């Protein structure tokens, strides 16, 4: 056991991951269920040479992060669903200016104010763009307190590597629960050198640096777009990450992220005791999405069907459908309103699907 193993809350662990990545700026606005991030940052970022501002709004927070990131600092903000909606304007500019930064969404139930219970209704918003224009966020989806810290840490590395904003997409359950975290895999680090493009006070003897997202001439804008698209295509090839649990012999493959993937673990353990061959495929990057890896299961003769449990009306399942290409039946199990899955919510449909892979109660139709 490492000396750096501690027992803590997911939202606090995310802050510790950020400090270890060299994050020097946190600007945010209180919203449940992620207040622990803002509070923990306000108390501890100073110990790491950083700065905290409780901003007047989510809109201001993301723009403060834009300013901090433009000067080369590692900077992050976090919020929960309604607050993330407000940050979308800033994220669009940040993406076009290719500013590396990290934002965490501890998703709660929507639309509107919804409630403060865990949910996954922001999958579309996160993985398909969110704000105006054609852009993508590198998005990591943790399912444990360990991963809350690790993925924030990794998000900073990826953001700088690709000069792209990165999102950690989690949910109220993962943010609020407590588990042991081992920081041995997160050595303290400084951000890479960004003196080629950052705004700073050392302009003597160099060309000035200009960051902008406006190209009035469509011909110039097309060039700027192509540069972004080229980056996104390379990201899709190089950064896809996922985790697998008992998938080698699985006849039903469950594809899940966040807290539903935890419940899937429990369901699989129950079903395996009954001799039923069920495995979990867990995307870690939900953008770029692991289409090819899932398609291999769709191509496998062994796999009878695929099941997607989501705490929403069906969002990630659209990506799973794109991966499966109608080669196998895809089933959907939903939880609404901020309710959370129980293992029984999954074991019963999986038993039915194993008996009849075209089981009509859960079969997902594109309509």
């Amino acid at each position, binding site marked *: 056991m490492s000396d750096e193993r501690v027992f803590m809350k997911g939202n606090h662990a995310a802050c510790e991951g950020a400090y270890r990545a060299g994050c020097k700026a946190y600007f945010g606005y209180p919203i449940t269920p992620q207040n622990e991030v803002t509070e923990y940052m306000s108390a501890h970022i100073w110990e790491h040479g950083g700065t905290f501002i409780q901003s007047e709004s989510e809109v*201001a927070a993301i*723009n403060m*992060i834009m300013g901090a990131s433009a*000067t080369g600092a590692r*900077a992050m903000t976090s919020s929960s669903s309604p607050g993330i909606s407000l940050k979308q304007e800033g994220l669009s500019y940040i993406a076009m200016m290719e500013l590396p930064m990290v934002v965490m969404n501890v998703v709660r139930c929507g639309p509107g104010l919804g409630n403060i219970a865990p949910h996954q209704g922001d999958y579309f918003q996160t993985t398909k763009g969110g704000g105006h224009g054609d852009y993508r966020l590198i998005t990591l989806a943790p399912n444990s307190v360990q991963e809350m810290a690790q993925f924030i840490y990794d998000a900073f590395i990826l953001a700088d590597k690709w000069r792209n904003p990165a999102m950690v997409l989690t949910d109220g359950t993962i943010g609020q629960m407590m588990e042991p975290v081992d920081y041995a895999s997160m050595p303290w680090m400084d951000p890479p050198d960004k003196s080629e493009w950052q705004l700073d006070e050392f302009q003597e003897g160099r060309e000035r640096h200009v960051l902008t997202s406006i190209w009035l001439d469509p011909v110039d804008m097309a060039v700027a777009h192509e540069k972004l698209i080229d980056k996104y295509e390379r990201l899709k090839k190089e950064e896809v990450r996922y985790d697998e649990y008992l998938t080698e012999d699985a006849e039903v493959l469950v594809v899940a992220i966040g807290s539903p993937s935890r419940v899937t673990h429990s369901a699989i353990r129950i079903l395996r005791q009954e001799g039923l061959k069920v495995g979990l495929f867990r995307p870690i990057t939900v953008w770029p999405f692991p289409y090819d890896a899932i398609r291999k299961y769709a191509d496998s003769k062994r796999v009878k069907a695929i099941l997607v449990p989501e705490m929403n009306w069906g969002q990630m399942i659209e990506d799973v459908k794109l991966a499966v290409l109608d080669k196998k039946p895809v089933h959907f199990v939903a939880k609404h309103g901020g309710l959370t899955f129980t293992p029984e919510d999954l074991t019963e449909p999986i038993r039915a699907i194993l008996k009849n892979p075209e089981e009509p109660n859960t079969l997902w139709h594109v309509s």
Partner: protein
Amino acid sequence: MDVITIEGTEYKVVAERPKSLTDTPFTYCPGCNHGTTHKIIAEVIDELGIQHRCIGIASVGCSVFSYEFFDFDFISVPHGRALAVATGAKRMRPDSVLMTYQGDGDLAAIGTAETIHACNRGERVTCIFVNNAIYGMTGGQMAPTTLLGMKTTTSPLGRDAKRIGWPMKMSEMLAPLQGAAYIARVSMHDAKHILKAKAAIKKAFRAQLEDKGFSMVEVLSNCNVNWHMTPQEGVKFIEEQMTKNFPLGVYKDVWQEEAAKQTAKEEG
């Protein structure tokens, strides 16, 4: 004084473009005061010797391309958010000098919250607020600072206080906030006032350099094209109408307050 040689003849340089301006020609309309405002800001930056540590924040409006004209690091940001971006940059780089350049729509409408809170936090940034009582870039719509009765494309019958309220007085609003170090309203309608404006802009940058707090100079500026006037009529409108609604003067001066406190201490 510098001497330049052209075709073998030496000439004394009596006037030149400030170093803090690029050689890109201004794209502003004839009669517009943005160009002159840019020039006096650049002169102040040259005189203070801070060009190479200035970071400019370009806002949305006619000045969206101001980064083409100022010769130092710049970022172009979303509408109204300049002071939030400036906050983040300044907090990370306290030795840099932050300038936002914003119009009335940017600062007094969509960015009102960012403006008030940056001022209230006493952010060490300098805001140049160009108030021409209209939305120039989008083609002459009503601004929060449009005068009562003034006709614009979205107040075709003239601004009516009952329906849309009164012209926003930003300098008066911000001055009482304790984070404000220097707040002044100046005008660009004649040479005398332009010189006064330059002195105010210099003080505003000094407030930042001396770590006193937030500084803003509200610049009453001509938009003769969207006001449907000649440039001469425009500056006359500033002098006669704009200054009546937006009185010129210094609304907050931290040095004066400090001196007054010192005097009171010595006397009392």
